[in-house]
């Protein structure tokens, strides 16, 4: 007889409950495989998100045994405790249904932090030459791989305690742009992030760094923003 797992899955919206399903335990099974099995074989009313299945899109992020993870890259046997698994939607975001959350505030804050590139040249100008060894470029490169999955946002206590807090991902992206010498919007961007709802609200608990599946460190980026804000303040540019 094949082994089975006891899987609790959040059902409902903000108000709801955990329902338990018995799922066959298989070799090299990921948590996403388990959720998919439940939806296809046991309960077609289960709602969840996924896309690439291979760890590049970030759509399948959920809370697994209390920790925010990419479910497609989480092997079940590594997180199962005594044959049990608990799967819920990402924290700190409104629940739409079951395992799907409303990501709008996450992306709205990204925009609020001026997390979009503001060009200075056009296609008719020469390419910008930026050496990879350039200090600012290195700092940007260290933070650039973010795919906007929301795991850090979901793991951050300050996000939970301060509803205006822009959050690790948005601030991390702002930092990459502050370090982008081609960008023209940095005076405005610093004003947008150097506030009580911005970089100064970060307490460096580093939960974001701990959970980021791309091993980025929003804490370090936010520390950079704090320094940049101080610099701007002392130069009268804030």
């Amino acid at each position: 007889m094949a082994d089975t797992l006891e899987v609790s899955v959040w059902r409902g919206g903000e108000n709801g409950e955990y329902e338990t399903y018995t799922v066959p335990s298989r070799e090299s099974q990921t948590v996403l495989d388990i959720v998919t099995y439940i939806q296809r074989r046991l309960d077609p009313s289960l709602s969840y998100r996924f896309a690439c299945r291979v760890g590049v899109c970030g759509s399948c992020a959920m809370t697994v045994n209390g920790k925010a993870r990419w479910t497609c890259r989480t092997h079940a046997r590594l997180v199962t405790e005594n044959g049990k698994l608990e799967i819920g939607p990402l924290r700190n975001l409104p629940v739409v249904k079951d395992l799907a959350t409303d990501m709008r505030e996450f992306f709205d804050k990204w925009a609020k932090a001026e997390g979009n590139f503001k060009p200075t040249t056009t296609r008719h100008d020469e390419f910008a030459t930026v050496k990879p060894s350039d200090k600012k470029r290195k700092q940007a490169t260290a933070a650039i791989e973010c795919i906007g999955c929301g795991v850090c946002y979901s793991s951050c206590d300050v996000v939970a305690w301060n509803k205006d807090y822009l959050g690790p991902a948005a601030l991390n992206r702002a930092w990459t742009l502050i370090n982008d010498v081609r960008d023209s919007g940095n005076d405005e961007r610093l004003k947008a992030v150097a506030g009580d709802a911005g970089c100064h609200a970060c307490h460096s608990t580093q939960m974001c760094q701990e959970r980021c599946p791309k091993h980025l460190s929003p804490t370090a980026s936010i520390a950079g923003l704090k320094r940049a804000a101080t610099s701007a303040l002392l130069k009268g540019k804030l």
Partner: protein
Amino acid sequence: MSSRVDTRRWLIQRVSAMVLAVAVIVHLGVIIMATQNGLSAAEIVGRVQGNVGWMVFYIIFVVAAALHAPIGLRTVIREATGMQGRWPGFISGTIGVLMLIMGLQAVLRLYGV
């Protein structure tokens, strides 16, 4: 809400922290040494009265603490209660003023010439 105000507040917090770091290490060292032979009012007063150098040190210490603590408390109030607006600042500011007055009073009484 202004980024300038918030950044200035953050900077004051960090600079006062650096001052306090030095002051606390000195203070702990001094106190551990001074209390070797027990503690009494007479002993304390006898040791410190009229010492202008130490008075200046402790004035700086008190001012730094009276700046640092309220800024920290303001954050704790905001995050623990979700209170918005100017109230967290007023409450913590009041505590700061209290600290400043009581602290300077103690320093001037003890070290005053």
